[in-house]
């Protein structure tokens, strides 16, 4: 079975090199990209490579199954640049996507075909309520992502800053629970509440900086730096000017 599949993939590759018009079906293109970039960790049919027993020694397990994760998860991981991941034992970090939009579309369609799974969500933050969003965000998200979405530390990983997260990506992350993040279903967090959270995160990207320069919106650490590196330096400089007495 596996061998035949490998042959099929190989054939597809050769075929692809031979003539472009043969790649009419997006699925074919997706399959080809998948085989080259993803199958090593996720298995050739997205069945995943499950954790081996810790006693077996060496590296144990590589990638989760993709059957039933749907277009949602594939879209999230590919568009955030989380996947493909060079070292499967490291936390994926946001980077420039490795594929073009068209390639991602093809891959997403291909991964979605592994089983029935959720489609790419279509959040409507314009229907959300920012105030409700702040309350929900504080309750569910601020512990890791910091109350203004600047990201944070948790033992074993980093909760990324939400500065670059698009509304769709936020919705996807909430539903998929990437890496160490909890996964919120529609019963745990209905779509309407999710819309409010996204509305708040969008607002928090440009928070109300009525006080002036926002210095990162993470509170006392940059404030202390300003105190010492700006105020203290200027005032000590003033003291030096005053203290050095003219002739």
């Amino acid at each position, binding site marked *: 079975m596996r061998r035949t599949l490998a042959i099929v993939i190989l054939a597809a590759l050769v075929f692809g090199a031979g003539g472009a018009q043969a790649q009419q079906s997006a699925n074919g293109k997706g399959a080809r990209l998948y085989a080259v970039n993803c199958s090593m960790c996720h298995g050739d049919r997205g069945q995943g490579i499950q954790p081996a027993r810790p006693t077996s020694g060496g590296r144990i397990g590589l990638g989760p199954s993709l059957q039933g994760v749907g277009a949602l998860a594939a879209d999230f991981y590919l568009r955030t640049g989380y996947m493909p991941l060079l070292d499967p034992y490291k936390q994926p970090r946001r980077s420039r996507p490795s594929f073009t939009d068209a390639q991602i579309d093809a891959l997403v369609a291909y991964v979605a075909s592994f089983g029935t799974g959720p489609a790419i969500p279509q959040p409507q933050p314009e229907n959300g309520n920012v105030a409700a969003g702040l309350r929900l965000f504080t309750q569910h998200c601020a512990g890791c992502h910091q*109350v203004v979405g600047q990201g944070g530390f948790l033992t074993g990983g980093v909760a990324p800053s939400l500065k670059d997260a698009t509304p769709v990506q936020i919705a996807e992350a909430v539903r998929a629970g990437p890496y160490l993040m909890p996964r919120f279903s529609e019963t745990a967090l209905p779509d309407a509440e999710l819309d409010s959270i996204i509305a708040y995160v969008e607002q928090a990207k440009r928070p109300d*900086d009525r*006080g002036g320069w*926002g210095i990162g919106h993470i509170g006392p650490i940059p404030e*202390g730096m300003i105190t010492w590196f700006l*105020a203290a330096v200027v005032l000590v400089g003033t003291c*030096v000017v005053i*203290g050095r007495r003219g002739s």
Partner: protein
Amino acid sequence: MIRRTVSFLDERTGGAPLFRKALRYLFPDNWSFLLGEVALYAFVVLVATGVYLTLFFDPSTAPTVYHGSYEPLRGSEMTRAYQSVVDISFKVKAGLLIRQTHHWAADVFIAAIVLHLMRIFFTGAFRKPRDLTYYIGLTMLLFAILEGYLGYSLADDLLSGMGLAIGYAVLMSVPFVGANLALLVWGAPFPGDPAFWSRMYIAHVFILPVLIGALVGVHLLLVAARHHTQFRSARASERVVVGVPTFPGQTPRSLGLFSAVAAVLFLMGGLIQINPIWLWGPFHVAQATNGAQPDWYLGWLIGALRLMPSFDVTVGNYTLVPNPFWGGALFPLIVFAFLFSWPWLERRFTGDHAFHNLLDRPRDSPWRTAIGMAVLTWVFIVFVAGSADRVYVFVGLSYNAQLWAYRILAWVIPLLVLLAAKRICEELRAGDRVEADRKAAEAAG
């Protein structure tokens, strides 16, 4: 006009001889002698802006629902205290400027005290007859830190609530009496009796400022009574003070420095956002945010709390030392005990009980400089450890690796600093001696 004013005052107070003396009081010249003045002027700005804020702040934990102009908080449950701070920031014209200036002034106030303390320490200005002045200064530093913590806490935003929780846990952790002390202060288990807010408020706006103000007065009186210290020079000696008189030389300098402090604080208050409590949201016991930090002057304590490994010291079922005690209470106690006992320690080890009006240069007392630098480094490393989580988020350096590194470096680096500082001081002194010999030889030749 001047003559009339002076006559008026003299005839009513008999103060003319005193005025004359005050105008001719001498200020020795060095830029580092002005650091204490910076602290004093920051305190003046603090009091002025603080009084303004009390006209609008409501120290009440009564629950209310926000219906103001800031959309993300609309409909949120909060205390009157928090709401009034949001209103100061949004509704009261110039309120945000004054609030931010007040907060910056607090950060600068304590920074200036620390700089001033470093100057006093490394030049040996704390020696007899000025040790009492030094103790009063240290006491003011303690009060100032407590005062800042209370101000940070009163706003009742998410960060202040978390800060209070930690303060509560540290007080609870005091061996034998912690729980009783916590009840005495909070009135009930956290978040405490509603009266706790009144207690914080009166302490923040009255008791501590009055204490600090009174100590400032005594501090300055003592300075004036014994006159300033000075560095050795051709004219300056242990018996003769050389300096610029209060008037006309020093007055425009001091007024100029005051204006400069006010300028920096108001500019920062208007242009650089500090503690935007509307972004943090109100505090509720069940809520917390990542990356919460205290103001810089308590950063050394959060570092120490995080560096401690997981254990409570227990004897049977009796918990002798709960964990937060080490970092939150014992660590600052050791640092302040060191600072308070240093004049005595130095007398003890050098046998020097003499009067000192002349200052040492740091190199003149290698042991003092080395030990002071080592303790400073120790505190500084623990302080930096408090931001390890943010360093991980920004730079990707493993938090756990950082923690272990700091646990080791906090002991190793101060030792290295101690040796290096002592060596440098001795080298510098040797260089001075060579130079002096050369000059003497030249003069003789």
